[in-house]
Every structure is written in C-alpha cells, then in structure tokens.
C-alpha cells in the first residue's frame, strides 16, 4: 500500500514536471527494419524528443485505432514509440498461439536496435508478451542485454496449457532477471482468477512483478466491437494509462 502511494506520489511529481506537454518532432513514419530471420519488420515510429523509446507490440487481435491514438499521446509527452503489429508483419495465424512463432532472435535484434541511443521500455498487449519476454529471457549479457528493462504487459496470456480441471502450465520464458514487469489485468476477464499465479510464475523466472486490476473493462477493451461506453472512454485514455504505469525511473 505504502509502496503504491509512494509510486503515485512520484508519478504525480513527474507528471507535474512534464507539463506543459512536449511537442512531437513530426508525425508518424512508416518504417522497416531487417531482422535476422530475413524478414523486414514493419513498424510505425512516433517521434519524440525525450530520451525514452517505447516498443509497443499489439496483441494477437491486431492493431486498433486506440493504440495509434495512445502512441500519439505518448509522443506528445516526449516518449518515442515504435508500434509493431507482429501478426501482420509475419503474416501469422490470428489465433491465440500465432505470436508464439515469432523468432526470439528477431525480437532481440529489434530491442537491441531500439535501445541503442535511448532508454528502452516495452508495452505488450495480450499474447504479444510471449515473443518479447522470450527475447529478453534468451538475451545474453555479452549481446548487450540491458541490466534492467521495463515492461508494461496488458493482460498477458502466458499459458503453455490451460485446460479445464487441469493444473495450469505457464510457458518457460528464460532468465527474466532485470525485467521489471507491470501487469495490467482487466477485472472483467477469466484471467483475473489467475493473476497471482501468473505473477508468481514470472517471479520464479527472476522478474520483478507488480500488477494492477483495471476496473470495469474487459480484455481488448480498446478494440472491442461491443465496447461499453466506459470501455470506449478508457480506450481514449490508453496512452495516459500506459504513461502512468511506466516505472518512475523510465519517465523522461
């Protein structure tokens, strides 16, 4: 409780310092980077003058308009965003496990490049947490693995197997020491029952894990066709939500 209060206090201080909003350098740019598998990874860059670069990876459901808005809002606050839709880039099956096929080496190359001249943080939505955490978990120190990497994971789905009446199994993601993971889990989700177990599984891999329950919203609330008025409202605030949850030391 005290820890959360101190974090909120710190966030408030930083938010006050950050006003007025910093101007973006220019509008979004559609770019590509070559990755070790031979693919060229499409991404949209939202430039900003701050010293933080955020890799934003959309969920298996694809990219929504609210995500672009969120990226613009973050860029206005000085956070450069590279927005990536891996399902689209790799032409993967849109099902739950499609993103598991993204080569970790490609993601390591992406993280390495993105972290070359700015401090790096990652936002991963849904199952997109898997390729990013696998990349971090298999990243060696001699390959430039940063001592700390902050992740905001919005309802991460890290199940290896989750069948009714059977003990849940989580994916092995490698060595997550130095990974600071902040999980945001919608209250209205089946995953809420398993939030503690999932956090515990990630701690066993060495990560520092904190979590927060997002009240009155469902998984993928920012892209749902049947979104409630409140979910629509929260979608418009997605960038602010992420901004508030980035670890204090990551803020510009």
């Amino acid at each position, binding site marked *: 409780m005290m820890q959360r209060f101190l974090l909120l206090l710190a966030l408030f201080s930083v938010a006050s310092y950050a006003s007025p909003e910093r101007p973006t350098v220019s509008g979004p740019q559609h770019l590509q980077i070559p990755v070790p598998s031979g693919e060229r990874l499409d991404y949209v860059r939202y430039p900003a003058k701050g010293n933080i670069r955020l890799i934003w990876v959309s969920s298996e459901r694809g990219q929504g308009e609210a995500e672009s808005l969120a990226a613009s809002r973050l860029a206005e606050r000085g956070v450069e965003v590279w927005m990536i839709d891996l399902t689209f880039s790799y032409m993967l099956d849109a099902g739950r496990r499609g993103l598991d096929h993204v080569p970790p080496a490609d993601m390591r190359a992406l993280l390495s490049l993105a972290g070359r001249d700015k401090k790096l943080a990652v936002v991963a939505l849904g199952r997109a947490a898997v390729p990013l955490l696998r990349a971090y978990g298999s990243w060696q120190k001699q390959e430039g693995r940063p001592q700390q990497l902050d992740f905001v994971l919005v309802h991460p789905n890290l199940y290896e197997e989750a069948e009714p009446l059977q003990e849940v199994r989580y994916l092995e993601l490698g060595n997550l020491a130095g990974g600071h993971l902040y999980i945001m889990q919608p*209250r209205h989700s089946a995953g809420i*029952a398993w939030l503690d177990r999932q956090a515990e599984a990630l701690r066993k891999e060495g990560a520092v894990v904190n979590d927060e329950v997002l009240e009155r919203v469902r998984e993928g609330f920012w892209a749902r066709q049947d979104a409630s008025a409140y979910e629509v409202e929260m979608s418009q605030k997605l960038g602010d939500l992420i901004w508030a949850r980035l670890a204090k030391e990551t803020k510009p």
Partner: protein
Amino acid sequence: MISRLAVLLGLACVLAFPAWATDFRKLDPRVAPVLAAIDPEGGKHDLATYKGRVVLINFWASWCPPCRKEMPSMQRLMQRLGGKSFVILAVDSGESRAESESFLKEIRPDFPILLDPDSEAARRWKVFAMPTSFLVDKQGRVRYALAGATEWDEGDGWLLIQEMLAE
C-alpha cells in the same frame, strides 16, 4: 498482399466470434471438485447434494457476451428436461451480485445462480475461459468439459446430456 488480406479476414472472424465453441472434451471420469456456494437470495447449494442427477455446471459472467448468448438455450434446456433427473448450476464468477443483477432480472433463469465473487470456485475447477461448462454424471463424476459457449438445447450438448440421463 492476398496473404495479408487473409490474415485480416482471420482477425475479423476472431473478433466477431469470440469464445464460441462446440468442442466438448471427454474426460476420464473423475470425482467432481467441491462446489458449494450461495445464490443471490442466500440459499445454499452444494453439488454433493445433487448426486443421482445429471448436472450441467456453467461458469459465466454478465460481462461475457457468449455467456449471455448461451444462457437462453440453458433456459430452454431446463424447460425441456423439467421433472427429469437434471439440474443446472450456473456459477456467476468474478463479479458481485450487483453487477449481474440486471441481466438476471432480464432472463429470470429457472435454475440456481451460484455466486463466486472472488473466483474461488473458478480456481478450484481450473476455469481459464468464460464461459466454461462441465457435465457431471449421476455418480457425481465430471465427464465432459467445454471451454466456450454452445446452444444447449440442440447439437452435441443436448445429445451428451440425453446419453448421461439414459445411463
């Protein structure tokens, strides 16, 4: 380009038809976990007391569209099997009574709704998706599981229940 269009089409299907399934998983018959909870009126329900009947246990929540969509079919199923050795226990999981109240007033189910606000029952039954249903036989053994929704008064669900009632 065609492949990317196919991916987009696939995405559209996933978004349009979330959690609708008809694949019942046949289980090695096993003793059902404990299921004891109260209904919104404070009535106590314990699965153990329903031995001798076939029981459909349905984990649901009012925020879940497929759950809401399948519930009228559960109502019809109950009406068709009224008086037989069959009962439905619908476990409202992970939400408060107040949150599901308006939906329940709307559909007025003929079967008990069990409250599981802290998801304790969902964890005990290892429920990872909404809705998830189980068919329990007259001996109190879980025989089938279904992650996702179905039309309970037709198709596989109806046939499996008929088979279990005939045993």
